[in-house]
């Protein structure tokens, strides 16, 4: 099963509309919540008047920030502590689930109206008057530190001023460099746009004092932990969080949101189920956004093309508050990766994280690694151009070639073969034939360019001892339980939670191979804190590397116990028993038991007539095992991508005409699912490069708050992707897997931008919209005219 393109068992229900999402759930006596959101980017709340609205038909309750204070409901948290270079802790503003004194972005939560129907809730919401004192908004990332302080006590709107690397050594490398290459980059802000908008339903049972929250979450256990421990809504043992089918997240559904907290709290308060379903525009306004960096970088290079140092200064926009993973994304998930695949002896990275009056920014597909890859791959291209070297040769000259490799910043890379995937990509893309294709395009009046991008990511997030030592508020292990039922089929419980990744298929493939049980007899149970063991959820391409490894470990324990039982039943020594293809065998004999027989025996022990108990003394009945897996290291997927674009110089319209990638994800469990993940990642990455942009105007209004203005790429924006692999298995987990979920989104933005810049011969920023490319070409022509 492992390594084969098994069709996804979950697809039938999804394709035929039988998925069960949070919004599909309707509970008896359910009420409907509608959130009143701030129309201003920054304002003081003088008064919220709900008197008139309370009398409107169908209104059950209206709750405001004052009620949050009264009920001592805690604020939303940032779960990763970053320490500034001067030794002080990061600074965070309070983040109440309903704003009390101040609103900090358009879409911030001010009050919730709960009514018998959604229409009645909306009607009543129109009667709520909020008296705001509007203040000047801080919007721009680069200017945030020079603007008015948004929060008392947070000077210059600075959350932290953090650094990584050896500054003195890096300065020295620059003082000795033959050439210094500089680049200024903007990593544009993106809206995650999960197909399923967020939703949550709170349901309180006063008889059992049990609170249930149904929500669109990538990690229900973490949601329960945070809402119990920090928001203080309900104790963990009386609180169940269920995330049924989840329709995409890309990171945006990792975090418990204000709506989750409010709906859970309100359900308990009013004693009725409260349901909230986000509408698309609210989703644009209030889902956590991604990226939003401004970076100035320098590369020290020798005449022969060896890179000797890298210096990076980044300003990262956190938005209006510090979201759950917001502080680790532009620091530990970013800076260690700026070295790319290159053997760079010294580097220094300074990150200043700023607050602005925009939606909170947090981890989004790739989280930090796309920003790092964009920076190193853009500056490598720039350097090759300035040195007059072939861009492919320049990269190869600087690749790490020996493994394990301790990088100068943080990571110790266990395995890889960078020349292998780069050379394969050059062939797949037919680099040799590029000049001919460029000439053909020119004959049609089009400008053709080729772009390269190589990347490394740290996935399988990961070793608790490491992440907690650098500020994580939780460990990042994963759990699994493999439970045989008496009839021989298996329920597998995982702490990971699929939101489109196909875990039910991939994880069943692993169990099927390990235990020799057909896939149809294996069911995956996830997304419910009352069912499975505590787990850390799905993000950071970790589910297989960490969660799959926990399942593997649990299977090993099952086999171990099975051997004891089989030995007893077969009157042999446990050490001699071999397990293969679902059978326990005494070698060189015809004595064997299937794993199904063993499972049955484990559940029906005891003497029965002539038959003596199958269980040896001291062995407990039942056949189920739990395992927690905490890896020894991150895993390091890497790869090489090459694309070609055609630009219409009349209109600036840019089309990606070919896209080739060769990725090293270690071992592949299901190559079809992997290919799907690569496709999705590429779509989002090419989307970032050419189309997508969350655009706030200077007053902090989100101009791109619907699909009329936010350019979601569509299928016809992409060529047929050419996808191949190389394989160096990971050594940090028993499956040898590295993670594939984010790679496409990490590698493709610089790949496309390098191709665009190659085509037009001048710089342009993301997204390279047709107008921007047209203007860049026009400016270039004008300045060339001036020079001539």
């Amino acid at each position, binding site marked *: 099963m492992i390594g084969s393109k098994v069709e996804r068992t979950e697809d039938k229900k999804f394709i035929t509309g039988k998925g069960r999402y949070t919004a599909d759930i309707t509970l008896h006596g359910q009420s409907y919540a509608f959130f009143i959101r701030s129309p201003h980017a920054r304002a003081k709340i003088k008064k919220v008047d709900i008197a008139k609205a309370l009398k409107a038909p169908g209104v059950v309750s209206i709750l405001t920030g004052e009620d949050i204070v009264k009920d001592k409901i805690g604020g939303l948290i940032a779960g990763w502590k970053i320490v500034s270079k001067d030794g002080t802790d990061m600074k965070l503003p309070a983040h109440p689930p309903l704003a009390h004194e101040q609103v900090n972005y358009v879409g911030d939560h001010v009050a919730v109206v709960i009514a018998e129907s959604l229409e009645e809730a909306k009607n009543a919401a129109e009667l709520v008057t909020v008296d705001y004192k509007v203040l000047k908004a801080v919007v721009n990332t680069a200017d945030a530190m020079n603007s008015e302080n948004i929060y008392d006590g947070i000077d210059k709107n600075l959350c932290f001023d953090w650094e990584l690397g050896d500054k003195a050594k890096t300065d020295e490398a620059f003082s000795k460099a033959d050439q210094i290459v500089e680049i200024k980059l903007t990593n544009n802000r993106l809206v995650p746009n999960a197909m399923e908008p967020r939703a949550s339903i709170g349901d309180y049972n006063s008889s059992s004092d049990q609170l249930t929250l149904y929500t669109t979450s990538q990690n229900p256990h973490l949601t329960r932990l945070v809402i119990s421990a920090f928001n203080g809504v309900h104790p963990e043992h009386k609180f169940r969080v269920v995330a049924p089918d989840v329709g995409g997240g890309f990171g945006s559904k990792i975090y418990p949101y204000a709506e989750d907290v409010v709906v859970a709290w309100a359900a308990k308060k009013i004693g009725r189920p409260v349901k909230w379903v986000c509408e698309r*525009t609210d989703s644009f306004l209030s889902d956590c956004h991604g990226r939003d960096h401004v970076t100035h970088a320098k590369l020290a290079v020798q005449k022969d093309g060896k890179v000797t140092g890298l210096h990076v200064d980044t300003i990262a926009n956190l938005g209006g508050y510090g979201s759950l993973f917001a502080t680790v994304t532009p620091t530990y998930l970013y800076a260690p990766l700026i070295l790319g695949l290159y053997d760079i002896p010294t580097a220094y990275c300074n990150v200043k994280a700023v607050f602005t009056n925009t939606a909170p920014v947090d981890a989004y597909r790739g989280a930090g690694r796309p920003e790092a890859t964009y920076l190193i791959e853009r500056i490598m291209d720039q350097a090759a151009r300035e040195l007059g070297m072939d861009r492919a040769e320049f990269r190869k000259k600087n690749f790490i070639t020996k493994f394990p490799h301790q990088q100068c910043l943080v990571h110790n890379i266990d395995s890889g073969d960078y020349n292998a995937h780069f050379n394969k990509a050059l062939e797949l893309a037919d680099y040799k034939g590029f000049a001919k294709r460029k000439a053909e395009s020119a004959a049609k009046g089009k400008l053709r360019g080729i772009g390269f991008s190589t990347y490394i990511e740290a996935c399988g997030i990961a070793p608790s001892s490491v992440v907690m030592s650098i500020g994580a508020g939780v460990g990042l292990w994963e759990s699994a339980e493999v439970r045989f039922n008496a009839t021989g089929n298996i329920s597998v419980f995982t702490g990971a939670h699929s939101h489109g990744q196909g875990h039910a298929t991939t994880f069943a493939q692993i169990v099927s191979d390990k235990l020799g049980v057909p896939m149809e007899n294996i069911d995956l149970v996830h997304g419910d804190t009352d069912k499975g063991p505590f787990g850390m959820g799905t993000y950071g391409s970790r589910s297989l590397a960490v969660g799959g490894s926990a399942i593997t470990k649990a299977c090993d324990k099952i086999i171990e116990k099975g051997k004891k039982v089989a030995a007893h039943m077969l009157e042999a020594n446990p050490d001699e028993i071999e397990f293969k293809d679902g059978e326990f065998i005494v070698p060189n004999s015809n004595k064997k038991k299937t794993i199904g027989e063993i499972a049955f025996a484990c559940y029906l022990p005891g003497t029965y007539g002539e038959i003596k108990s199958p269980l040896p003394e001291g062995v407990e009945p039942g056949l189920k095992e739990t395992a927690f897996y905490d890896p020894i290291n991150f895993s390091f997927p890497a790869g090489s991508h090459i694309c070609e674009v055609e630009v219409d110089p*009349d209109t600036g319209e840019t089309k990606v005409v070919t896209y080739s990638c060769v990725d090293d994800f270690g071992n592949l469990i299901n190559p079809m699912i992997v290919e799907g993940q690569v496709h999705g990642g590429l779509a989002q990455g090419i989307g970032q490069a050419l*189309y997508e942009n969350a655009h706030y105007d200077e007053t902090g209004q989100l101009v*791109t708050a619907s699909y009329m203005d936010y*350019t979601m790429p569509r299928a016809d924006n992409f060529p047929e992707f050419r996808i191949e692999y190389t394989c160096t298995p990971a050594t940090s987990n028993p499956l040898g897997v590295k993670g594939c979920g984010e790679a496409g989104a990490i590698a493709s933005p610089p790949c496309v931008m390098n191709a665009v810049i190659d085509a037009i011969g001048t710089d342009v920023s993301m997204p390279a919209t047709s107008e921007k490319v047209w203007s860049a070409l026009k400016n270039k022509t004008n300045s060339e005219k001036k020079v001539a």
Partner: protein
Amino acid sequence: MKAFNYHSASSVKEATKLASSNSAYLSGGMTMIPSMKMRLANYKDVIDVKKIKDLHGIKVTSKSVVIGAATKHADVANSKEVQKAIPSLSSLASRIGDAQVRNRGTLGGSIANNDPTACYPSACLALNAIIHTSDRKIEAEKFFKGMFETALKKGELITAVEFQIPEKSHYFKFPNPASRYAMVGVYVAKHKSGVHVAITGAQSVVYREKNMEKALNDNFSASALNGISIDTSELNSDIHASAEYRASLILSSAKKAVEHCK
């Protein structure tokens, strides 16, 4: 969406009789329903006109193509007769929105709405259309008044649009990357009486570019448009395209439209 009374009219007469100061006709609903759901529009009475037989169908004569107001974009796109008589018109319909929109959205709804970025209004101006309503016939020149504003009076129902068949024509659309409405759309039609160049997406309302018409009347070729300067003062400017960029798109799109005329 706020509650409203739903009526389904079976004749033009019944529809106009139901109309009041707080009512609206519902055709494909592709614009009206989203704006009601977003609470930008509320009506007491919604009068569905899709079941009115007289509002459906396509009639082609030697001089004109008459299309019922409730005819869906997909039907215009797939009509063999329209494809033969005015290929640019069926091609325009085939590029509106996506398959779902084309299978619900209608000609009447589109021109009544008069979105500044919609496609059909440019066809009306380029093809000398006459808008037939429950009360009268209106020349296209006098129909499109301003942004989302038409010559229709309260309760007046569009019944059909009569397009004049040109010698040759083409609609070139440069789509807005996000919405895929026209960021600039140029409809060029060569009639015996002269060339029409209608432009949508570029200003607050569809208009005819008289400088281009003049140049093309003298010499119907793309090169005749070289050097034509486009006044940017009235052009739309937004996050997708500045006025200068739109001006350049108007020129390049007009040239392509002329080149593709058939």
